[in-house]
């Protein structure tokens, strides 16, 4: 049964967008298939892995558990919306610098969850970072470098001249 398309208008990565799609699609499918934004990854579809995390009005949600239609009139941010003016977001720089990504599949979601945390908590404790990222699974890097990258980016966003510790970059001698 071909579904007549539904049309919604919303803000996507800072720009007004109008998209037409089959009304039963999740936001994840709409982003990847109809908006052509494949930075948001498709994981478990159950709410366990967190890899499809996007920001809805600045707050992390799972795009696989949200209907595309639910986003009408709202603000959606994906990893494609993080860089500005041709420059990576400090979190993206820090993740790259510290090797906080290995296969990279979970990275867009971690970046967005971390961005939402830093927006409300510029100086988060390690425990607060762990809690904010608890819904995101990484199966290869491990979490330590991810936490360190969030801390480094947070320091830089606060305007501090932060450089990563030597052992963070090269391991213990």
């Amino acid at each position: 049964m071909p579904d007549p398309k539904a049309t919604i208008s919303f803000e996507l990565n800072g720009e007004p967008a109008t998209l037409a799609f089959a009304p039963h699609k999740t936001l994840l499918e709409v982003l990847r298939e109809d908006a052509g934004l494949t930075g948001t990854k498709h994981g478990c579809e159950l709410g366990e892995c967190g890899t499809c995390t996007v920001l809805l009005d600045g707050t992390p949600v799972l795009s696989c558990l949200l209907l595309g239609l639910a986003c009408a009139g709202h603000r959606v941010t994906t990893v494609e919306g993080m860089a500005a003016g041709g420059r990576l977001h400090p979190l993206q720089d820090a993740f790259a610098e510290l090797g906080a990504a290995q296969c990279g599949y979970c990275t867009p979601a971690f970046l967005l969850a971390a961005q939402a945390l830093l927006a409300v908590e510029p100086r988060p404790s390690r425990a607060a970072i762990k809690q904010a990222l608890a819904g995101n699974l990484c199966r290869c890097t491990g979490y330590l470098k991810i936490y360190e990258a969030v801390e480094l980016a947070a320091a830089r966003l606060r305007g501090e001249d932060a450089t990563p510790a030597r052992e963070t970059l090269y391991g213990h001698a």
Partner: protein
Amino acid sequence: MKPAPFEYHRPGTVEEALAVLARHSGDAKPLAGGQSLIPAMNFRLARPAVLVDLNRIPALAGIRGSADGLRIGAMTRQRAVERDATVARDAPLVAEALPHIAHPQIRTRGTVGGSLAHADPAAELPAVMVALDATFDLVGPRGRRSIAATEFYTGLFTTALAPDELLVEIAIPRPAPRSGSAFVEVARRHGDYALAGVAAVVALDDAGRCRAARIALLSVGDGPVLARKAAQAITGESLTAEAIKGAADAAASQDIDPPGDIHASAAYRRQLVGVLVRRALQRACERARSH
């Protein structure tokens, strides 16, 4: 996979929502936060012909404190409840249980009423509401009715809610004087479904004895289990370590018939309930004494 096609409705009022539910009797499913329904639809375990999206009905969301207690709109997000100062003051058991529900992303979207109506036996909120003796307000074509949380749960994923009714509001009575509560659970990882969990409320009399206790268990039955034998065992007693242990033993041996599955055997769940009821009662008593 992806959800199967469905007819989508997004009413702006409760009356409109009820009209759609009545029109498609049995085929329509209300969509709250979607954190349980959409996974089931993604896997095609659920294929509702009609979805009634409740997310644009402002009247269904909100937290109100009153002299009688707290009223929480069914569509209030779990994250909002978790951070609400009135909830922390007037229903600390709710505030203590909420961070155990999945992860921040899920709680941002998930609603209190959605979780309560879904009636997953491993869910935290149904047990919390049973322990608090909360009342649920349901609205349908036959009008509005109130039902005690304990009566609302009728079996595995089943409730007293008719297909043409909506859960609209939850009323939590004001805590009794000299009372305390505690929530504890064990999950393999934080945010996973609990292997077992306990929500306990204890009220003391002037002599420091247990005047009343309500203990609700999760993940050990078809729904939230009110541990009546455990409550009987301590009611009227001085809350010594021995009395608390007696109640915990009663919970583990008489109040439950837990299932065994790949996550935990029935015997292990029984063991957990004994330990967790003891811890919850100890903590609830300490809090009651400090009031």
